[in-house]
């Protein structure tokens, strides 16, 4: 394809951590949400795994934090083209939560739901094998509410809209059920390395 007249570009980065079409946002961390930031009452908040599971599993805030925690360090990628490199979160692996509930035969997808009603869909395989967490700390501090605090999903190998803010429920399904952005034109899986930004990519 022909170049854009007069455009030379300056964002070339040899940084192998940047997926195609992404640029380094540096120390910033943009906030991009589509609704009013909620206030989450932790005394009434629970984390629940339901759907196609052997038993419904639910944790209070205190119970969740009593589970074995993991610190993840790496890079996150927003579909709007910024990436934040070398950041860290602490929380509990989704493996631990799923194990407590025991996904049933045919379990293949998960719908994550937030306190706001926001949803996002993920293949079960993207949430297992130590690749997804439910986190409440960012770089050693409590996760700020505008970034999904007190608790958000973290699935860093997919575009960041999959890492649902204010997560409260994971529903195991045998079919893929599009979530909020996925019904609004965005990709069902959202792999940054494949540039799966929009439906049809």
């Amino acid at each position, binding site marked *: *394809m*022909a*170049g*854009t*007249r*007069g*455009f*030379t*570009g*300056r*964002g*070339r980065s040899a940084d192998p951590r940047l997926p195609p*079409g992404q*640029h380094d*946002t540096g120390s*910033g961390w*943009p*906030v*991009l*949400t*589509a*609704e*009013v*930031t*909620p206030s989450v009452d932790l005394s009434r908040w629970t984390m629940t795994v339901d759907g196609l599971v052997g038993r419904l599993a639910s944790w209070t805030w205190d119970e969740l934090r009593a589970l074995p925690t993991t610190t993840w360090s790496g890079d996150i990628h*927003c*579909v*709007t*083209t*910024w990436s934040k490199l070398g950041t860290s979160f602490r929380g509990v692996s989704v493996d631990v939560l799923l194990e407590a509930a025991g996904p049933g035969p045919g379990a293949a997808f998960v719908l994550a739901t*937030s306190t*706001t*009603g*926001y*949803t*996002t869909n993920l293949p079960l395989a993207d949430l297992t094998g130590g690749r997804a967490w439910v986190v409440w700390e960012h770089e050693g501090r409590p996760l700020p509410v*505008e970034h*999904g605090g007190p608790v*958000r999903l973290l699935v860093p190998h997919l*575009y*960041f*809209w999959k*890492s*649902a*803010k*204010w997560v409260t429920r994971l529903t195991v399904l045998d079919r893929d059920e599009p979530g*909020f*952005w996925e*019904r*609004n*034109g*965005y990709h069902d899986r959202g792999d940054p390395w494949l540039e799966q930004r*929009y*439906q*049809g990519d």
Partner: protein
Amino acid sequence: MTGTSASAGPAGPAGSGSLTAPTSWATGVVREVRHHAGGAVVLRLAVDGMGPRLPGQHVVVRLRADDGYTASRSYSVASDPADPLVELYVERLVDGEVSGYLGDVVEVGDELEVRGPVGGWFVWDGVRPALAVGGGSGVVPLVSMLRHAGSTGHPDRVCLVAAARTLERLPYADELVGGCQVVALSQERSPAGREPGRLVAADLEPLLRTGQQVFVCGSSAFAEHASRLVVDLGVPAADVRVERFGPSG
């Protein structure tokens, strides 16, 4: 997801606008270039084959260097869907790789790669009364709503409250007069006589109607402030749709 950059990601009730999946890349031919204060530029593009648009949506613009390197950014569309041209208001960002090019280099006749329209959430259906609250370039997708209300013969269906530091820095200030439009400037008296100061509840309260949908667009800090004002005035959070501009060049 938009603007100076598209807002992607978390949040939004299970309700949904119409599904809009952008198709492939198309060629947008630049038909008009208008430079504004502070380095902003208005571009009007003829995009061959672009499907129907909804007020509030954005497009992705992709620039390509001769060696194949590309840079993409999302920009809200200011034009009414009835306008055959896609109008973008591009605010110059410090060191903006894409906004700098669009502001300095682009001329009428140039071709840009364009994809869209994108977005099924931050869109106005053209029917439900709407209060649109924008900060700075956050007014751009709201101007599309305002223009649409006018062109469909229902100018009273959209009230636009625009906040900026100065009138000069407010996109489309000339269209934000009369009707139920409000201009709230933090550093100057507004043309309608409002004293300088940041947006407050009193700017919004007279415009609230039962059953209204509220659209808030701007920087993260502005969106947080304005959406909080609206909810504190009693608007159900479920009736508020927010688009936050993230930094991108």
